[in-house]
């Protein structure tokens, strides 16, 4: 309604002073809560200059943490993508009893505290857990080792892709698949040639968010990791150790790397939303 004459204000338009006041309030609030923390990370990392920050980020322990974080994400994200596609196909393209319950159960890890997520695997695979003795006898380490970290990461990122694909595929309905199948296409062919092209951007969107969380997870991983430097420390855990040792430049240098990851994620996400407006998440994560 921008065309409304300056002489009168439309029924859905607010006065200019109200707009300025509200926009100003939002800017102040977001600055205090979101922008300043982001700026603070880089400022603290560069407190002793760029060289010190780069040096800190290139410590062997820090590099080991980066490697472990990438490895964990490289396992957890594809796993959850495949799971999400399976779940979305079963849920969105078919009708069955208990569908709402199943969706709620898939969503469950979102509402479980990350610390509880770590604890459950300790109770199963830990020394005193269900399989503790058997694992010890066979010299398999899950807790305080990489498999535990991957498991905990999979748990906390479990719903991301499914959550994105289910509403998207439900909205798209089943008529295109039915048309393909009525013309004799196989199920797999239909999936690749009809469904996949329709959901690829939604899948990418879910993968993006899943990856950010997988690389950044702290609580769940903290419980199962054992914090062994150079071995079971992911980047967020390494940040904690350095911070608690008062190595602030080191802590914030690694944190700045994670900030860059967040910024890249947000840029890609925004670009995706602008290019493909219908992938925009239907609810928060």
């Amino acid at each position, binding site marked *: 309604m*921008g065309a409304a004459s300056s002489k009168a204000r439309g*029924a*859905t338009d607010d*006065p200019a002073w109200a707009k300025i006041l509200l926009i100003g*309030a*939002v800017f102040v609030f977001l600055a205090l*809560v*979101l922008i300043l*923390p982001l700026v603070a*990370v880089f400022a*603290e990392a560069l407190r002793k200059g760029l060289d010190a920050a780069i040096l800190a980020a290139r410590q062997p322990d820090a590099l080991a943490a980066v490697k472990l974080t990438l490895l964990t994400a490289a396992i957890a994200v594809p796993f959850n993508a495949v*799971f999400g596609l*399976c779940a979305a*196909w*079963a849920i969105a*393209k078919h009708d*069955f*009893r208990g569908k709402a319950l*199943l969706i709620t159960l*898939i969503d*469950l890890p979102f509402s*479980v*505290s*990350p*610390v*509880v997520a770590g*604890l*459950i695997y300790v109770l199963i695979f830990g020394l005193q857990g269900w399989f503790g003795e058997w694992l010890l006898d066979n010299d398999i380490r899950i807790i305080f080792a990489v498999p535990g970290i991957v498991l905990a990461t999979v*748990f906390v990122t*479990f719903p991301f892709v499914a959550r994105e694909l289910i509403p998207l595929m439900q909205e798209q309905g*089943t008529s295109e*698949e*039915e048309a393909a*199948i009525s013309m004799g296409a196989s*199920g797999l062919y*239909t*999936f690749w040639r009809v469904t996949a092209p329709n959901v690829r951007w939604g899948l990418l969107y879910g993968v993006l*968010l899943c990856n*950010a*969380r997988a690389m*950044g*997870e702290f*609580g769940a991983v*903290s*419980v199962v990791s054992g914090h062994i430097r150079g071995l079971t420390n992911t980047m*967020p855990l390494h*940040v904690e150790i350095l911070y608690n040792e008062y190595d602030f430049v080191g*802590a914030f240098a690694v*944190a700045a790397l*994670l*900030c860059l990851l*967040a*910024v890249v*994620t*947000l840029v890609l*996400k*925004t670009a995706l939303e602008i290019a493909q407006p219908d992938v925009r*998440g*239907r609810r*928060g994560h």
Partner: protein
Amino acid sequence: MSVIPLGDRDVAPLAPRCWRFWTLDDDQTMTADTADQRPPVQTVRKPFFRKRSAIPGFGLTMGVTLTILSLLVLIPLSAVVLKAAQQSPAEFWAVATSERAMAAYRLSFGAAFVAAAINGVFGVLTAWVLVRYEFPLKTLVNALVDLPFALPTAVAGIALATLYAPTGWVGQFLTPLGIKAAYNPVGVVIALIFIGLPFVVRTVEPVLRDAAADVEEAAASLGASRIQTIARIILPALGPAWLTGFAMAFARGVGEYGSVIFIAGNMPYRSEIAPLLIIIQLEQFEYTRAATIAVVMLAVSFLMLLIINAIQAWARRFD
């Protein structure tokens, strides 16, 4: 000639089940004899679990989904309940309601509630401004709202602790006012505001965007002032989405760990959150105690899920 698969079960014959009760014209009256000569029609049982569908792959994908869900989520979650059940109900109750635990719940729930309430106000405001107004840097602001989804919680934690510490950029202005933000319950609230903000914004925003302008115009043409229209038409229409966002921010805040521990100070009975208490018990090899507190928190998670689903079912009534 190839047979087109119509699903992974046999197709029900398309036969009416109650043909005996058809009304017939007088000259066509069917005797019982002729009726019995018709071939018997087999009644096919209505599928109990799944409605018939032409799209294949249900068995496979459903099997994979349920297997992974059970192995990774449901069975491990039951482990914590079983562990807690190793003690007697009285023991369970004593641990679950110990003074230190109660203090931790009070902080976790209280801070999560206050943070969700603050986000309830500023989240709606942010969503309103993003949907209704045009202003510079709007795309940037819109992207930034999702920062808490993308930024690792530990990074947020050390950044907020540094900012709101007594000597920090923001903290130095709060100290003269007598406000101790970091290393205090206030710090917990600040961290949970950060964590919860996008939940409220992103649940309210689509509802606000889809809200038809004609409803506001209707209110205005009926003589309502702008304030009356906002208070009596727009905000009530946002109600269910707002409650959902509030409940999601609250649920996330109750369980949050990474961003909080750096800024909380972690003093038992004072600034120790419930998830931290679980970790402390775990480090002391008190697995049953850890599981007990975890069960309490799980129960709250389930409750929140039920509440969120109930809100959404209630909201659907008005559509």
